């Protein structure tokens, strides 16, 4: 299916795609986080909700297979998570993007002033970080290390700091 959407997803899988700076985090480290972020010993409910690593190149395929084998040896069980090539990727509809941040209008509006085009809003690292903090991922200590880099006004810095847990 060339253009899946939420109501007609066909044989596509809901997928998190991460653009990352390899100078700051490696693919192997992302794999470590991935194994901690789902139940790899459980069978997937459906093609839509598949446990899978979709590799982009041969280097990623090898790293994914090695990582999967290492986890299997460590826990003494076979993992159900698939390792498969990424064949295509379709960005979800706009209303799915940065969903949690969009529930906080004042914060969202500060970022929309930087990025009036939704595509740029979605691609912004600052927006991604704010979405994560708004979703409860991150602590006050983490936020304090980067809050000055997010482009927020003094008022919104205060709002965000109050939202984030110790």
């Amino acid at each position: 299916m060339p253009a899946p959407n939420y109501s007609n997803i066909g044989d596509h899988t809901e997928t998190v795609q991460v653009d990352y700076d390899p100078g700051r985090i490696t693919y192997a480290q992302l794999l470590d986080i991935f194994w901690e972020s789902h139940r790899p010993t459980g069978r997937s409910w459906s093609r839509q909700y598949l446990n899978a690593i979709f590799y982009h190149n041969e280097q990623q395929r090898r790293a994914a297979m090695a990582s999967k084998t290492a986890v299997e040896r460590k826990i003494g069980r076979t993992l159900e998570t698939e390792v498969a090539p990424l064949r295509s990727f379709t960005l979800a509809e706009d209303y799915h993007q940065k969903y949690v941040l969009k529930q906080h209008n004042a914060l969202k509006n500060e970022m929309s002033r930087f990025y009036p085009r939704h595509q740029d809003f979605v691609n912004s690292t600052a927006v991604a970080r704010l979405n994560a903090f708004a979703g409860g991922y991150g602590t006050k200590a983490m936020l304090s290390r980067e809050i000055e880099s997010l482009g927020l006004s003094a008022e919104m810095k205060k709002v965000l700091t109050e939202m984030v847990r110790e």
Partner: protein
Amino acid sequence: MSLAYKTEYPAIPPIDEAMPDNLETASFGLG
């Protein structure tokens, strides 16, 4: 991912300004 915004807007958050162009991409299905 397009980093076109880096040159299209007069002011953007420092964390976006500092993002290098050589990003890599990873894809995961989380069930």
